[in-house]
Every structure is written in C-alpha cells, then in structure tokens.
C-alpha cells in the first residue's frame, strides 16, 4: 500500500512537471508517412532520371556559395556595409574555421549523394534495370558532376579527401585513415583519370528523357558539360594540347547539318545579324546615349531560353518562383528585395572604365570606357550593384522589381566566352600565341588578314597549317570573291570585337605572358562576377609560381575600396599556403 502511494505521488509529480515544463511543445508534429524506402528507389530508368534531377536540385542550392567563394575571394567583388564578419573574412582572406560560407560540408553531402547514385546505377545495370546506353549517359553525367565538385573543392581548399565510395554520413569522411587528403595536383590527376574514363562525354542527345523542356526551361542546359570540365582539368594540370582538344570539340558542337545561324554561331562566337547577336552596339555610332540595351550583349543575362540563349550558354541553372529553392543570389546582390551583401569593387569598375572602345571608322575620337561595365553593374539608389544576376528580377529600365515576390534568375556557370578564353589560354601555352590573340581580340580573319590588294584569301583567314586542335578555317572571300569561301569560322568575331573594345596591346617580344595577362583581363571584362575570377587568378599564379600575380590584385581591390589591412592581406597571400581555405568538415 505504501509503495502504491509513493508511486501515485510520483506519477502526479511527473505529470505536473511535464505540464509545466513542456507546456509549449507542439505535440501534434508528426513525421510524414509517405517515405520511399531505399530498396524501392531504383527500379527503372525513370527512377534514375529522378535521382539525377534530385542531384542537380541539390546542386542549385550551392549557387550562392559558389559565387561567393569564386568572386568574393577574387578582386572584382567586395562586401557592403550590410555584410557580416564572415563575408568580410572571405573578402579579406583571413577566414576563421567557424566561417559558415567556407564549410565544405554541403559539397561533400552532394558528393556522397553522387557516390550513392553511381553505386545504384551500377547495380541497376547489373540487374538489367537500365539499358547500356541509358546507363552510360547517366553514369557519366553524375560522375562528371562529382568531378566538377571536387575541382571546386581543390581550388578552394587545396588538400581534400577524395571519396568515391557511398557513405551514409559526411562525418565518415572525417576518418583520415580511410580517406587520406590528396594534394590539389594529385586530386586533378585522379579526376582526369576518372572523368576521362567515363563512357559517354556528350550532352544528353535529343529525344532522351533528360533532354526535355520543363516549366519553360530546356533541361539540356542544366547538366555539366563533360568536355568543358575535362578541358578545365587538363588546363589546371598543364596539359595544354589535351585541354585545347577537349575545348575544340565543344567549339565544334554545331559544325554539322545546315549552315545556318546555329552552325556559325553556337559556341563559335559568330554573328548572325539578328536578335540572337550579343554585340555591344549603339543605335547611332558615337552617341553614348544610344547604347542598345535590348537585345544584344546585356540581353544574354535576361533572355529566355531561345536560340540566342542556346548559342551563347553552355551551362546555366534557373531559379524560378515556380519551383524550389528560392533564388539566393537576389539576397546577395540586390538592394531591392534582397539584403545587398556584396557589391562590385572599385577595381572591377576601373577594369571597365580603363578599356577604351573602338573609334567609329574614319574618326579618331572614341568612348573611353568598356560598355560591358554599364551592363555588368550599375548604381541603384546611390549603391553600386552587380546586375548580371538581377536582370530577371529588376527591370533595367526602371530599376525596380518586375514582381517583388517572384525572385527569378539564373545561375551562370559556363558560356562560349569562358570556352574561348580557356582555349586561348591553352593555345597560348602550347605556343600558338597568335591563335590565342585572334580569339580574344577580333577573330581569325582580322588576325590573319590578306596583304592589301590581295583578294584571293586562300592562304589567309586561316590556321590550317596547324595540327588539330589549332587548325581553324575562317576564310571569307566576300560575296563575289574568287575562289569563293564561307568557311566554318568565317563569322568568328573575337571577344573584344563583339564587345566593340580596342584590341589588347602587345608590346615587345614576350607574347606568352602578355597574352596570358590579356586573357585574364578579358575574363574580368567579359565574364566578371560569373563565378570564375578566383579560379582564374589562382590558376595563373600557380602556373607561373608567382604569388604576386594574385596577391597584388587582391591588394588593389582592398586598397581602392578602403578595406582595412590591405598590406597585411597582400603579405598573407604571398605565402601559397594562405591561398586555400581551412578545411573543416
């Protein structure tokens, strides 16, 4: 009886304590019951497709991280007064281990997802749940995505564990006994080995289930381009001819079928004389107020997935109010509907303002700035704002949101100018300086012109004496020329030609380094803020073993923006070990 009494009291006490302590808990939270069990996940090719879409869906959530790591660490993007200390650390290269922006865990989560999908694809193939061709396409895509992620990790962290087996949790990666850290160089070797061995390196062919149009977007542009990735890996490695070969294959993507706009334009930086063009142009040449905003150069960042978009872009992922996740780039960049955490640096503005345009023919005066700057950033409410990512959200004519709640936009990863600049970088290092020069200035026809008075262009406008991949034929005889030529590359404009800026000046005899400097400079002008700046600077600094190449640029950014401790940052970056972020999972 006594025992009963005590237990009765205990129960009352317990119940009442619970009532007091957890009175506010939401007891109605229930786990969802409709969960797909692992064993039922991979049954046929459509399940495989769903897995791939799932991977890319998760990949999209890395967009802000990718842009911040690659641009804020570079010299063209800086933090605003709104930024927290972690963004400031990233910009000033004194990152502490607790910095959430530099935590590699989200990369590894996705990598482990890739590993799991790869393992299951192999099982599906073994069990005949997927055809050989279907397997090859899908396995290669996921494998290449994983290689892309590892390349990013290598660029930012230097030494990272290379995990290719399916693990249940990221914490298992921490076990250094099982997964030793690879140096960046060894990592690239492993990545080349793996990626080169992938059975399928083209985009998903038309008619396959992953190359469709969904919610108004061509899914074909969602997936990593395996040849571009391989080119990049070879370029990092220093295997320039192999890199150029991969890039060239992408450049020739559309060299088949009818010789029309797609044939001459796609990935060839050609013109078409139509709304697909991405020139810098003025409706009245010489009148600065007549700069064309739509279509032309700016429009490539805004336009829907039409032909003009298709000819320019190689890899883009959309953000749309119709699906998750929400666009994180508006929060980063926009003072309208966003937090405005980062802004263009003065250094970036100077790149554009110090690059003069071409004079109108017959005149000597010229506009003293590169108009791509006007399109890449602008002032909104007195604040400098990076605009490239915002053209689907902010109306360029009014500076206000098209629809404040529809935060549409795009994550730009790769386009034809990246491709051409990197091909040129490889060609330049392979000793083909003039080909590199042609690609980023005014194209082949301008770089290899016939002597004056010569109308037969058979021996000009081309580099056909070079072996593949350096043999370009851009011969153009004109409509009445004899013999008649309209070669595959005759419409190639060159990056500076398309942007209406004067050719890059090469003085003296050392073309190699000057052209390389010019290519990196051109990447800033043409592809600024598109997420490749840090990687570009790092690649050159590593190749030349010249820390000052990188350190000086960051120093200039901080100096011009009045960021404290510019000299200290420069001193830190003169030590190669400080080029990489602390790796802490």
């Amino acid at each position, binding site marked *: 009886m006594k025992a009963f009494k005590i237990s009765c009291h205990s129960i009352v006490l317990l119940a009442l304590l619970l*009532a007091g302590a957890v009175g506010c808990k939401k007891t109605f939270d229930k786990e969802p019951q409709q969960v797909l069990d692992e064993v039922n996940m991979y049954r046929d090719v459509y399940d495989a497709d769903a897995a791939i879409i799932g991977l890319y869906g998760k990949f999209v959530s890395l967009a802000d991280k990718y842009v911040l790591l690659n641009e804020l660490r570079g010299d063209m993007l800086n933090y605003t007064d709104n930024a927290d200390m972690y963004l400031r650390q990233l910009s000033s290269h004194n990152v502490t281990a607790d910095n959430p922006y530099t935590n590699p865990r989200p990369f590894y989560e996705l990598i482990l997802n890739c590993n799991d999908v790869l393992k299951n694809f192999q099982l599906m193939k073994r069990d005949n749940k997927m055809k050989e061709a279907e397997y090859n396409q899908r396995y290669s895509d996921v494998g290449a995505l994983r290689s892309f992620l590892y390349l990013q990790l290598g660029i930012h962290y230097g030494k990272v564990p290379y995990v290719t087996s399916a693990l249940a949790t990221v914490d298992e990666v921490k076990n250094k006994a099982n997964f030793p850290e690879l140096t960046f160089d060894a990592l690239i070797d492993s990545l080349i080995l793996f990626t080169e061995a992938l059975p399928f390196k083209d985009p998903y062919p038309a008619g396959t289930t992953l190359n469709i149009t969904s919610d108004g977007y061509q899914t074909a542009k969602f997936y990593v381009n395996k040849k571009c990735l391989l080119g990049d890996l070879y370029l990092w490695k220093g295997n320039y001819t192999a890199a150029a070969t991969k890039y060239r294959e992408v450049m020739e993507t559309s060299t088949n079928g009818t010789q029309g706009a797609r044939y001459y334009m796609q990935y060839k930086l050609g013109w078409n004389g139509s709304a697909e063009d991405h020139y810098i142009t003025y409706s009245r040449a*010489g009148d600065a107020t007549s700069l064309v905003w739509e279509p032309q150069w700016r429009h490539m960042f805004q336009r829907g997935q039409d032909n003009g978009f298709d000819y320019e872009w190689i890899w883009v992922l959309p953000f749309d109010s119709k699906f998750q996740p929400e666009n994180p780039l508006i929060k980063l960049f926009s003072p309208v509907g966003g937090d405005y955490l980062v802004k263009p640096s003065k250094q970036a503005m100077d790149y554009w303002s110090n690059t003069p345009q071409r004079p109108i023919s017959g005149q000597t005066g010229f506009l003293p700035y590169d108009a791509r700057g006007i399109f890449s950033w602008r002032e909104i409410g007195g604040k400098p704002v990076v605009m490239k990512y915002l053209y689907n959200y902010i109306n360029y004519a009014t500076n206000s949101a098209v629809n404040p709640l529809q935060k549409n936009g795009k994550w730009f990863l790769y386009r034809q100018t990246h491709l051409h600049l990197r091909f040129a970088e490889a060609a330049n290092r392979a000793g083909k300086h003039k080909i590199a020069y042609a690609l980023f200035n005014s194209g082949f026809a301008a770089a290899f012109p016939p002597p004056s008075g010569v109308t037969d262009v058979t021996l000009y406008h081309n580099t056909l004496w070079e072996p593949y991949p350096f043999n370009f034929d851009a011969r153009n005889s004109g409509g009445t020329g004899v013999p008649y030529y309209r070669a595959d590359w005759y419409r190639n404009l060159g990056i500076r030609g398309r942007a209406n800026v004067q050719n890059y000046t090469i003085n003296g005899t050392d073309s190699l380094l000057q052209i390389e400097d010019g290519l990196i400079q051109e990447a800033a002008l043409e592809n600024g803020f598109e997420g490749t700046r840090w990687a570009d600077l790092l690649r050159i600094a590593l190749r030349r073993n010249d820390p000052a190449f990188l350190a000086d640029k960051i120093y200039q950014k901080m100096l011009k923006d009045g960021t404290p401790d510019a000299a200290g940052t420069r001193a830190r970056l003169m030590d190669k070990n400080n080029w990489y972020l602390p790796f802490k999972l």
Partner: protein
Amino acid sequence: MMKFRIYQWLLIATLAVTIGCKKDWDQHNTVSDGNSGKSLKTLMSGINNLSKFEQLLAQSSYANILGSSKSFTVFAPTNEALISLDPTITNDTSRLNKFLANHIADLRFLTTDATDTLRVLMLNGKYNNFFGKKVEEANITTADVVGSNGVIHVIDKMVPNRLNIWEIISTTNEIPALQQALLLKLNYQGFDPSKAEQTGVDPITGLPVYKPGTGIVPRNKYWDRVYDLRNEKNQYTFFAIADDAYTTQLNTYKPFFVTGNADSTNDLAGYTIVKDFTMPGLYTQAQLPDTLLSKFGVKVPVNKANIVKTVKASNGIVYVLSNLSIAPVNKFMPIVLEGENYSGSSHDRRSNTFFRDRINSTTGLPYRDVLVSGHGVALFNLRYRLSEMPSMKFKAYWVAVNDFQTATFTQRLAPGVATSTVFPYTTVAVNNQTEVLIGEFTIASFQQVYDIFLVGANSTTAAANPVVCDYIKLVPSL
C-alpha cells in the same frame, strides 16, 4: 499526513505551471522609479520652489494638461527665476499661454537623450535647444523627475519666447530700415491649393477648380530662393548692414541691373546684396569665422569688430553690422553652359546628334559633349537659355573637340539672337582639347531671359557645318 502531502504536491504543481508560463520579457524594461505612478501635476506640487510656476499654470489654459494621459517634458523655472517675469504677461492669458507653452514639450525627453543638441518642439510651435543639463540659456538644476505621463526638469531661468528671424525682420525695427524695406518689397502673393476652397472639377482636364480669391497666401522671393527664415525647425545666421553701408553697396551694384525703371534697378541690386546674407546654422559670435560661404558660393567676409547689434531669434541669430561689403568680382560667378544640355535647336536633328563620352587629354577628366554632324542645314544652331543676366561685359570661352574629322571647320557664338555677328566664325582645330577664348561681349541691360546660340557654318556640306561643344564658359569681365 497523507492529506497534507497531497496538498503539498498540488502546491508545487500549481507553482510549476504558473512559473512555467510567466512572461519575464514583459517586465524587463518597466520603470521602477518610485514616482512612476504619479502624474506630473501631482509630482510638481511635491517639488520645492515650483509654486509660482504651478500657480501660472493654474491661471492658463494649460491648467489640466499635465494631469492628462499624454506624455510631456516640462522645463519648470523655479520661483526665483520667475521673479523677473513681466507682469503684463501674467495678466494677459493669451501671452501667458504662449509663455508657458514655451516650457512644455510633447513626448518625453530625458537628459540622457540629449547627448547631442536636440531641437525640442514645444507646445507653442517653437523649438528649444536641449543639450545635456542646459535648455537654451537655462541650467537644469533638478533633472529627470519621471512621472506617469512624462518628465520634469527644474531650470534656473525662464526660457523667453522669442520671435523667429523673419518676424524680427518684418515686425520689429531691429534691422536697419533700408534693408528691411527691401526684404519686404520682395513679398508677393502666391497660391496654395491646400488653403484654397475647391468648388468642382474641370470636366475636360480633370483638374480641380478653386473658388476665386481663396488660397492666396503671402510669399517672399527670399523664402523661395535663399532660405525660408520663418522655418522654426532649422537655425540660421542672418546678417544685416547699416543703411549707409547698404547705400554704398547699392550704388556699386546698380550698374549691373540697368532697367527702364529706377525702382526695379534698386530692387534687383538690393536682392543681389542681401541674397548672400543668410547662412544655414547658428554661429555664435565666438564661432563666427572670418569668411563664410553663402548658398550661392559667394565668399562673405565677416569682421566681428563691425557687429553693432546681436538679436537672438527662436530659429537662429541676427547680427547687425556697420559694414559688410562684397566686391562684384566675388559676387558674379563664371557661368558654365554644358554643351549637351542645350535648351533647343533650330531644326530637329536628333538623328544627327551625338552625345559623346570622352576623356580630356589636357585635364585628364571625363566629359560628355554634343556633336551635331551631317545635319544638312546652313546656319544650324543650338540654343542655350540663361536667366537673370546682369548688364555687364563677359569673356566667352568654349571647349570644342574636333576628333571626328581631319578637316577643320568653323562655328560661332551668337549672344542674344542667332543672327548676332558680335563674334566672328572661329575655326575649330583638329583635336584641340583646351579652352579657347572667343572674345568679349556686353549685355547692355539686365535680362530676365537671355539666349546664347552656338551657330554652325553657313553651309550644307557635312564636313563644313558640324557643331560641337563640350562647354561654353562666360566669365564676368570686371
């Protein structure tokens, strides 16, 4: 025993429930001052030395306001401070109301809020400066007596009810007569739709129709163009000069305002003198620098030794000086007309007009200019409109950059009318980026509106008749 224990458990349980839900946050910032329950009215009777102020309040319309539930700040002068109060104020309720209202403010201002000078809006619409333990000239002897509806600060001086600068100018004789007369002559009648009575809506234009004669408000050119000296919220420093000094200045400036009418000339010259006599902000005599820069960029030399009278105003300070002279050479600034900001053109040639961005190789600075080329019109011109041009001689310069053709061409400036031949055609050399002196011209009489034309050659040939201009500069030749 068992019963007792059950009650014990119940007690613990009740406590557990009540404590578990207690909202500590609600109480974290409540004031725990002993006076917090009492109104200012109750509090005041408990403070020594405020009986006189209380008595005045009781006589006035503010008798009950301090017992109300709004929030106030009261600067309460002690009995000693009120001894010197003019008895005519005490006996006149409307003046008494104004006097007391100058000691009471809406909202609660603690001395800890006044770490920088606060302009506190009082109930009479004036602002008093509150900084630390001072309000205007009075010291706060007992600060921050907080009640349920505000705070009392006990002060050792009254805060006098002052006029604002415009009231001093227009209703007193504090400033010298000639200048006062001039400032009042700048009055005019303006229309304020918010004060007008609307009688309907025009069915055609959709605009409101007002009853004739309503909405007419007094305005003054000085308020519009220089500073609105009635504004209580801001503070200004206003200078006035003695009549003889004013007359001397007037005679200096009259030749620049030649009109058909002596009065007009006097008014224009007078306005030119006084427009630089107001500075934003309050400069005490100790703070006055020897030179101030007026709103119009004119340097105003102030010799403190010349100050003959100082009048404090509710929105600043007025200094009367025996002399303050500004030479015309300092008063009349060069006029720069940006080429691209033209007011009109003789023909619509937008498609031949180029707004060009360039960097000047001489100065290294970026500029934008205008080029009209290939327009096909003889004597094509761009018109630049100026207003209120004084009668004087000007030197004219331009920067015109011919970087678009290898041939030179000619263009000319035509002051007044497009056909003026005051200036000959001037050759625009190739790539000359420097300022070119075109010559001098005289405006004989004051002009409310004045045009300058940039005229192309009398030719229809594209290479001969372009018009190009970065800027035109007119420098007073004094």
